[in-house]
């Protein structure tokens, strides 16, 4: 019965990934006291500080442009791309011992950490989002669906990037260095600092080749809609994500074939 065999395997895999997520949680945030708060604290503090500075400057110089949501969307997405990617450095090294259990595969280990770090940034984002709404005292959006779709696309993109970077870290000697560059690069590879509308046309067409610039713009459209013209292309983000996912999986299968998990650059 192939279907029952498949569902049995699937159950084992889900069990393994759940266990790995819990293992990552304990290892990274400790089980004593408020250690688990560190999970949200790091992204929260960075985004919170930027938002506080902006809020302060807005008090001194009133403007009609919604600065606070602008910062929340920009820095939120930047951080959601950056932080999980950065955390993939050395993921296999920390967990290689678990490969002695035949149920656990390299990909499970990657998924475990990816899921946990995306979850932690997502929670910080939601907390800041609530804070933002509370400060504005306004819970109406132009298009809530656009925000949700944008978040989902960002999560998909980040997951792909995480697995890709985990592969580089695990199977290449320079991987951990490359990850630092990729992660830091996301400061500029998302649309954190400007609305597309502010850019000159030629520059804008170039910038819109960055999938996360599109996603940021989409989310901003969801927040404040018609105040500024938003430029984005959902199909392009989906297309990019599919290519990224395909490329990552191809790379994984080719590396899995040619390299042994016991033969890694430690």
């Amino acid at each position, binding site marked *: 019965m192939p279907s029952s065999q498949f569902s049995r395997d699937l159950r084992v895999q889900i069990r393994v990934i759940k266990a790995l997520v819990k*293992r990552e949680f304990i*290892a990274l945030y400790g089980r004593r006291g408020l250690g688990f708060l560190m999970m949200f604290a790091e992204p929260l503090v960075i985004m919170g500080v930027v938002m506080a500075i902006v809020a302060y400057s807005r008090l001194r110089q009133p403007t009609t442009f919604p600065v606070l949501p602008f910062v929340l969307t920009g820095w939120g997405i930047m951080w959601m791309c950056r932080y999980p990617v950065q955390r993939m450095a050395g993921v296999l090294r920390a967990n290689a011992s*678990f490969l*002695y259990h035949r149920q656990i595969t390299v990909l499970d280990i990657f998924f475990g950490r990816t899921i946990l770090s995306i979850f932690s940034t997502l929670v910080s984002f939601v907390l800041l989002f609530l804070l933002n709404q509370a400060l504005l005292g306004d819970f109406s959006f132009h298009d809530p669906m656009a925000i949700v779709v944008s978040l989902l696309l960002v999560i998909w993109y980040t997951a792909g990037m995480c697995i890709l970077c985990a592969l580089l870290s695990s199977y290449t000697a320079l991987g951990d260095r490359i990850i630092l560059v990729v992660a830091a690069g996301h400061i500029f590879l998302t649309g954190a600092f400007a609305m597309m509308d502010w850019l000159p046309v030629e520059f804008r067409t170039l910038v819109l080749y960055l999938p996360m610039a599109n996603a940021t713009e989409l989310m901003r459209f969801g927040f404040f809609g018609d105040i500024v013209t938003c430029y984005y292309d959902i199909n392009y983000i989906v297309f990019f994500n599919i290519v990224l996912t395909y490329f990552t999986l191809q790379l994984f299968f080719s590396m899995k074939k040619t390299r*042994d998990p016991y033969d890694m650059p430690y």
Partner: protein
Amino acid sequence: MICLTNVVKEYPTRKGPRRILDNITFSLPKGKRLGILGCNGAGKSTLIRVISGAEIPTSGTIVRSMSVSWPLAFQGGFVGGLTGIDNLRFICRVYDVPYRAALTRVEDFSELGGYLREPVSSYSAGMRARLAFAISMAVDFDCYLIDEISAVGDKRFNERCKKELFNMKSSRSLIMVSHFMGVITEYCDTFSVLDQGRLTFFDDKAKAMAFYDRVLSQKVISF
């Protein structure tokens, strides 16, 4: 029953692939205790890992129709940064075993006391062996794969291991690799020698011992 058919394992080296296991075929029925002797670099640990499924053979098939433990070895199985308890909890989740009952058994059997709540990286080799045995006993496999690790337990612990392994359940199987005949005769009832990637079986330990001595004396070990 564990069945290996034409199992080959090669590792890439600078000079091209090096064959570690060369066409290994055997089957181990339930209740049999197989000891595998081999010198350094003969491929003992590789064989154990391949049998456990932690490593995929280059070619050949392995059929496991009983539950097989992970290789109980010095390294592997546990993450050093986690405490003994956290490792236990992780393994319980992976193997779908109730944690509370397992914890009682591990506390009782490992006799590690407070050290169960310290990181595994602070354990000595003997303590790691105790933890590995205790956790694998709590999961309760049909077949145990033991890679040298029994050599580090003290006499009291080894006695308890043997009792737990064989007196509790006579249908338990065991595959143990070592370069030392003493441990193997203590635990096993079938003997074999791994040399040049090939596994040779013997009816009794005297013949196995003689063959192993011959292999050792003839050979300057070079990798």
